[in-house]
């Protein structure tokens, strides 16, 4: 079998069009989320290390660079949630008898679950 032909494409293709750009932003939100999860894991590790280590790490988290990172990561995470739940009806067609459940109801119940999850976590932690 011959190898498939790939048309050469410059690495900047995603800058040529708004839809491509938003696609790339959505893909890159996962990078910020992954970095945040590493910082969260370090936080858990510092809690295990004792009160002094924990307080020193929280002080580090209060530095301008760390706060800026978390604000950007929060924006990225919100963008991930919104795009993920909005696309959920595309990936999962729910049928009730003969009729297909409208997309708005599937997306709506996803957003409702998000609100409930957020409130439960905030209630437990705070």
């Amino acid at each position: 079998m011959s190898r498939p032909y790939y048309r050469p494409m410059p690495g900047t293709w995603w800058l040529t069009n708004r839809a491509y750009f938003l696609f790339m932003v959505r893909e890159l939100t996962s990078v910020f989320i992954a970095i945040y999860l590493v910082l969260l894991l370090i936080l858990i590790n510092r809690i295990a290390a004792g009160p002094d280590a924990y307080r020193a790490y929280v002080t580090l988290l209060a530095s301008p660079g760390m706060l800026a990172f978390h604000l950007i990561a929060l924006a990225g995470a919100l963008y991930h949630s919104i795009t993920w739940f909005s696309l959920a009806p595309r990936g999962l067609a729910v049928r009730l008898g003969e009729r297909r459940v409208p997309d708005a109801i599937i997306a709506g119940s996803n957003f409702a679950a998000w609100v409930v999850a957020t409130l439960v976590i905030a209630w437990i932690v705070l």
Partner: protein
Amino acid sequence: MKRSSEPLWWSLFAAGGVVAALFVPVLILLTGIVAPVGWAGQAFAYERIAALVGHPLSRLFLFTVISLPLFHWAHRFRFTLVDLGFRGARSAIAIACYGAAIVGTAVAAFVLIRL
């Protein structure tokens, strides 16, 4: 016929996408902004937070919320790199991305079990 591992990676990607969408924004807000700025008063005092994180259900939750989204990242980042033109290094990229997620999962398990 050679069995493909794609369904496994895709399932982890999808599960990680759901977990990240539901829980990551509120966690970033709490641990990255509310706690360091000090808006929550005594909620993040050491004794309280150590007891909360040490609960078995909290550990299970934290393991899930760290591990699955790492596989979500791995799957997305793998194809993003290929899309950006690193087509020649396809298998190396896949191994590096999923490998990083597996290492992250192992470290998370180690930290949370030892807690």
